[in-house]
């Protein structure tokens, strides 16, 4: 286990540097001069441009710039935006919003998705099973921005059940966007749970348990369910990070000031440091959650032995 853990931790290194470098290089290549973009109709004086370029290391070649950025990162310094805001301050402001949205979406996904998947899997071929299959296919097929608009129009505007946009009404404002954000993952989770449970219910060990007279409750609860949930836990672990990274469309539709919106505005305004900072934070969330899932795996599935 210790050796596996060490190897798994080592694997993080190339992933972290690879992903952050790719994003840094892409932002670096965005056409246009970010310093010129700061000024309006009247161009900045040459000395100011010079000072700013020097401050943001813009005249260094790409690898040097990247190295300086990473060095700052390890000191906990996310750098400054070209307009002089601390990127870490922006992260502190925006991330909690997206995390709240992501967690609520995740909760909806886990509760409803697992429940629907379990009910469908236990009664394979029943009406409920078909209902779950058809409705999840629909949810996956409808693009999330269409789903967002429809939810906004129907639940928000027509029936007035939930706040339509913005965050002024506290946590209730998160409900509708979280439902939309979590819907696709919910559908995947439900289908995965169903398939996994159906497969496990046919396994030999389930037949054995039934044959020795164990009540069905215990067969399902103690044997089938535990094993079926292993792939689901993997999916959910990876999905938590994906929900936050994918919140951008939902945040746009529901006018929620999270990181997605911030990235979007920052790309337009050529605020490279903000973009790289946010994506780096998301990459770290992803790396951490997959690591957690991999370790969890060893405890959940005794068949997996790491040597």
């Amino acid at each position: 286990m210790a050796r596996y853990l060490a190897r798994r931790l080592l694997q993080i290194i190339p992933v972290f540097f690879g992903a952050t470098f790719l994003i840094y290089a892409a932002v670096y290549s965005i056409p246009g001069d970010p310093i010129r973009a700061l000024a309006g109709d009247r161009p900045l004086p040459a000395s100011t441009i010079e000072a700013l370029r020097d401050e943001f290391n813009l005249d260094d070649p790409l690898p040097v710039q990247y190295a300086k950025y990473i060095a700052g990162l390890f000191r906990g310094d996310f750098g400054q935006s070209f307009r002089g805001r601390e990127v870490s301050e922006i992260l502190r402001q925006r991330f909690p919003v997206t995390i709240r949205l992501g967690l609520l979406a995740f909760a909806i996904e886990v509760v409803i998705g697992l429940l629907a998947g379990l009910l469908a899997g236990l009664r394979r071929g029943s009406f409920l099973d078909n209902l779950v299959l058809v409705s999840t296919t629909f949810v996956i097929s409808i693009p999330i921005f269409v789903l967002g608009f429809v939810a906004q129009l129907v639940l928000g505007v027509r029936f007035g059940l939930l706040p339509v946009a913005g965050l002024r009404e506290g946590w209730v404002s998160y409900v509708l966007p979280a439902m939309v954000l979590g819907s696709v993952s919910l559908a995947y989770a439900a289908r995965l749970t169903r398939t996994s449970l159906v497969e496990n219910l046919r396994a030999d060990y389930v037949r054995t348990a039934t044959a020795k007279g164990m009540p069905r409750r215990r067969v399902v609860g103690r044997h089938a369910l535990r094993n079926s949930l292993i792939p689901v836990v993997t999916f959910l672990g990876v999905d938590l990070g994906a929900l936050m990274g994918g919140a951008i469309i939902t945040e746009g539709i529901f006018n929620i000031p999270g990181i997605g919106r911030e990235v979007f505005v920052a790309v337009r305004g050529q605020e490279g440091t903000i973009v790289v900072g946010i994506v780096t934070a998301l990459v770290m969330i992803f790396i951490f959650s997959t690591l957690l899932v991999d370790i969890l795996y060893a405890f959940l599935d005794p068949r997996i032995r790491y040597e």
Partner: protein
Amino acid sequence: MSKDIKADPAVPADGDPYGERIDEQPHRDATPHAESGLSEGAESVGTAATGGAVSGRSASLWSDAWKELRRNPLFVISALMLLLMVVIAAAPGLFTNQSPRACNLANTVGRPQAGHPFGFDIQGCDYYTLVVYGARTSITIGVLVVGVALLIAIVLGCIAGFYGGFADTLLARAADVWFAIPAILGAIVILSVFNQRGLFQVAFVLIVFYWPVMMRLMRSSVLGTKEVEYVDAARALGASDVRILRRHILPNAIAPVIVYATITVGIVIASEAALSFLGVGLQLPAISWGLMISVSQNRILQDPHLLLFPALFLSITVFSFILLGDALRDALDPKLR
């Protein structure tokens, strides 16, 4: 590639001395779980399930699947719908005699009416014509992205799964890097590098984000297939690596990847629409369902038809691909029978 898919492993080809005996039964132990160590259990189930289904020489995986598919109403429906979409994409002129560029501002946001069943957009263009021409963009992007990504995935997945070692490690880490970047945010950043964004730029970015998943799937599928006796037998008879991969491993290992790729065509089409909706995908004057929804997003309350029609066509297309993939999976996976 299509030759390999159609290659019937149960029918010995001419001049294939070891084909007959070795390829007798379809081997269905490759599952996406192979990587996670679950394959032991799945293997026995899979072999047991197929063992009984083998009847004579015509019972290959793909001919069995085809028989099963023809009887599946979901497959027939989704295949017909996709056929219609492909025809619309290939020859939009068959479905409308108007030009999508023939617009009259006097008709701006006109409601659906006789002769113009979908109404007009903000520029006064016939919305039905626009929706029809939008099919071409979506189908092209979907097929192009998945085709290229699939090709990359098959080649790299075979290398990683069959040879293992350093190449495997290298490819696994490369895939990890792309996994770690949130797809939409990454796509936004990369797409903003291009001054002009057309079909090819958007397709390129989508390929970049979709190949790693397929590569992993292909790798684990190859891993599950290469340890079986008929591969050893082929090697003992002196078959080259390329031959073993092409004739023995690929036809048996490709099924899960084909299923995933079919579904991915739908997901890619939705992704293009999402990127165009965000304003970082295709640019006007391109005609795309996502772009149409993007342009009209501020008028949806007053003019719902601007959202309804492109969204409907988009959803139906994505839905058909997912349904087709589901039907394929049911037919190709004997475990679920």
